[in-house]
């Protein structure tokens, strides 16, 4: 079934009439995504790229049955837009906006408690289930349908990995970039759990970065609960120390969050660790072959 989004997802864009939102809504429609409308406060009742514009998410949900939203509003208004989507009953909220204040996201995460919604982002390339639903800014043509789940922090490194896999004939069930911000909507673990239960995903590729401990938490869970190969890469082995965002978190956890330390931990947790980003595709292929031999 893929995860988060599929061909039945009904998508709205918040900040619909802006330039970027318009372009990416058109791209999404071209790939077959059901874009059912959008929200731009003050422009309700108008039509934009042949779809209705609403003043509020509540109106949009009531009149179109939307369950997914892509947020393109400027950073100062992003937190409000995301909470409006949560309140309006949207189930998957993809926040493309870059530059959202961290404390705004702290409040949004608090507001999310008790609501049945998943936030992806901010500062994300978004989510794509190839040939079914694209809610993001990624180049759709490189995403071929298949059975590998991908979750990354970075957008462009996600494209890089996916292209390497496509060249080897490995397609994607769903691919998600969770974004590089220190406080983000959903983490690796949340998505790992969804991939573990997805019948259309045979293996999971996790592309992390220096800072924090989300990758290790997800891998720890996967070792104990997921019966699918997990391939992992951590970017930033050559990043200079002291320039990362992970500093504050590391004080509290006391954990080492360099790329080398994280890759070592992942290897100990039975993850197929990729040392070189240019070898991601091949490592995924080899890990699948190895698992077949074992089976």
């Amino acid at each position, binding site marked *: 079934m893929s995860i988060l989004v599929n061909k039945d997802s009904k998508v709205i864009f918040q900040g619909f009439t802006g330039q*970027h939102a318009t372009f990416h809504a058109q791209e999404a429609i071209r790939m077959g995504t059901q874009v059912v409308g959008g929200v731009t406060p003050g422009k309700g009742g108008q039509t934009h790229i042949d779809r209705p514009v609403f003043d509020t998410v509540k109106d949009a949900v009531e009149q179109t049955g939307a369950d997914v939203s892509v947020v393109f509003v400027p*950073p*100062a208004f992003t937190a409000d837009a995301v909470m409006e989507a949560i309140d309006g009953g949207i189930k998957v909220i993809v926040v493309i906006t*870059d*530059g*959202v*204040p*961290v*404390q*705004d*996201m*702290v*409040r949004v*995460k*608090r507001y999310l408690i008790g609501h049945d919604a998943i936030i992806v982002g901010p500062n994300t*390339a978004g989510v794509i289930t190839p040939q079914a639903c694209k809610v993001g*800014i*990624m*180049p759709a043509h490189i995403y071929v349908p298949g059975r590998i789940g991908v979750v*990354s922090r*970075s*957008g*462009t*490194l996600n*494209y*890089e990995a996916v*292209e*390497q896999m496509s060249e080897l004939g490995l397609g994607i069930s769903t691919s998600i970039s969770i974004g*590089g911000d*220190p*406080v983000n909507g959903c983490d690796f673990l949340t998505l790992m759990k969804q991939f573990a239960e997805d019948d259309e995903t045979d293996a999971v590729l996790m*592309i992390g*970065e*220096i*800072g*924090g*401990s989300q990758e290790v938490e997800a891998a720890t869970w996967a070792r104990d609960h997921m019966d699918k190969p997990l391939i992992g*890469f951590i*970017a*930033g*082995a*050559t*990043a*200079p120390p*002291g*320039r990362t965002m*992970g500093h*504050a*978190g*590391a*004080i*509290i*956890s*006391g954990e080492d969050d360099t*790329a080398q330390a994280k890759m070592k931990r992942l290897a100990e947790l039975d993850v197929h660790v990729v*040392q*070189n*980003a*240019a*070898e991601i595709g091949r490592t995924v292929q080899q890990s699948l072959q190895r698992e077949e031999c074992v089976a």
Partner: protein
Amino acid sequence: MNIHEYQTKDLFRHYKIPVPEGRMAHSANKALTAAEQLGGEGWVVKAQIHAGGRGKAGGVLLAKQLDEVREHAEKLIGSHLVTKQTGEQGRMVNRVLVEQMQDIKAEYYLGLVINRANQRITLIASAAGGMDIEEVAAKSPDKVINEVVDPAVGLQDFQCRKVAASIGLSGKQINMAARIMKRLYRCFRDKDALMAEINPLVITGDGQFLALDAKMSFDGNALFRQPEIADQRDFDEEDPKEVEASGHDLNYIALDGSVGCIVNGAGLAMATMDAISLYGGRPANFLDVGGGASPEKIANAFRIVLEDPNVKVLMLNIYAGINRCDWIAEGIVKAVSDLEVNVPIVVRLAGTNLEEGRKILADSGLQYIHADRLSDAAEKSVKALAGGAA
């Protein structure tokens, strides 16, 4: 974004967090005047740079006589202070803070951070004040108290009292310390801080609390609504090239290798640097051009990277999603015609409008090394490096 100690203490005064009387001075004479105005029987002259570790590096000097204040200030102002956070080149000291010497009975640590693990503001306190808190946390984690703040209600009084008692305070001190914690939290929240630290928070001979040192950093993404914080940015404390790059909306960090890198996206940029190093080269920089890069932006990226005399090869790795390869190619052509480029250029383009981009490069007659893949690009960059050296 960071601000100086004297600026943080001004902010603290506004929030009624007790700090020592002090004056900032740009010269030895002004430092002397400051000490005279402050009065008292002893003074502390503190170098004002953004890096920590000043005390151990000789950046905090005590004076018993007024003459010594002048001597210390003279010694510090204009010098390069090397601390464990500055790197070996050190930081130029442009100003000092002169404060009255305090009679210290006890030292504590108090801090607030946004904790990545639980994604909430967390209060940190310890009885091991005046020490490196990361070292304390690593060696004896039980000496570091963490209290998580619920964003819906904010830091509560009972939490502050609990923390105060946990670090060994008693009696009236508990409420006094709790008030400081509450005020620090209010300041942190109001000003969109990412980190606030009082190390040490001291109790003086007459039983008063004082924030002897003060450090805060703020969220660069929130500066649009914190104009009075943004105004306090000191560009002298930042790498001039990084400042210039950020003016062009480029994220640049200088490193010490010889392969200049221009990449889109922070993750791909880091992975590209890692790949260069796996093939035996060393990256000269981190540079993320971001999304929607115009030809001008690419040309600026070229200029900034090539200003580094260590750069012997320039490598572009662009995986265009929201970017466009044709714009990137136009930028490359523009940069090469505007600048004197004496190093080999390796170009790897992929994604949106790839064919248009390649055509622009081919039609321009530009000399460059073509790469199809990341591995290619990294390998060819390192090879070009060897070729250039021979």
